[in-house]
């Protein structure tokens, strides 16, 4: 019985960490703090994927988000000097309007979000790697190839954009 409570407790801890670190990304004054808190958010999100039973997605999450994207962002931070204006968060003209718009948009969505109910008869299943792979390489083979073209285009585009004459 006490074993059943592990799932809600884990969900609560992970949700607290995700929301807290997410707020930290927005509110932190130092940009390096923001970047590391973003990595922490992604790490906790990987735990949430494991809780949902999507272990493969959790592994991708750690490899791509915590590994690649955080390092890329940290390189961006290092290549650009961060001036004192990064600290002047709440004294800018669009802050109030932006926060009000985000809150107004959030309220109805949050109200609807809790209304979703689980389907009654979800069949138990094992890991998600085999169905994921068979979906990607059968039904989604063409989008998969298109994604590789997108990655190639992004790579060439990024190189061309930052290339010196």
């Amino acid at each position, binding site marked *: 019985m006490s074993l059943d*409570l592990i799932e*809600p407790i884990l*969900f609560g801890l992970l*949700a607290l960490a*995700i*929301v807290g670190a*997410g707020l930290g*990304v927005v509110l932190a004054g130092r*940009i390096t703090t923001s*970047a590391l808190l*973003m990595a922490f*958010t992604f790490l906790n999100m990987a735990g949430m*994927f494991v*809780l*949902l039973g*999507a272990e493969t*997605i959790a592994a991708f*999450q750690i490899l791509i*988000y915590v590994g690649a*994207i955080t390092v*890329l*962002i940290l390189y*961006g931070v290092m290549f*650009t000097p961060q*001036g004192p*204006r*990064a600290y002047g*968060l709440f004294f*800018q003209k*669009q*802050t109030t309007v*932006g926060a009000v718009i*985000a*809150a107004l*948009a*959030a309220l109805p*969505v*949050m109200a609807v*979000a809790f*209304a*979703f*109910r*689980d389907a*009654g008869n*979800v*069949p138990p299943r094992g890991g998600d790697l085999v*169905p*994921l792979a068979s*979906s*990607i390489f059968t039904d*989604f083979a063409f*989008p998969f190839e298109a*994604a590789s073209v*997108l*990655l190639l285009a*992004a790579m060439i*585009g*990024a190189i061309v*954009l*930052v290339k010196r004459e």
Partner: protein
Amino acid sequence: MTTLVPLGAFIALSAALFFIGMAGVLVRRNAIVILMCVELMLNATNLAFVAFSRRLGLLDERGSVFVVFVFVVAAAEVAVGLAIVLAAYRNRPTVDVDEVTEMKG
């Protein structure tokens, strides 16, 4: 299979993180922080995709497939986004999006 945590809780967490990221995009003016907040929003949608995929009783993993494509798009987006930030920084030494006004009509 015990499902003590309802689907709605996952969707609400996803929505909360999405709007935290949206507030960050609207409020922060540092281009790199804005990129980070866009990543938060993309990751929040991933949680919604996985939750619906695992909990709505469908037999395949279509939601998880979409998450893989979101990963691809997020990686491409952050690479091109940082390249644009660095290129704009070379023209005008600032990462503040309010000061990059060359394309304003």
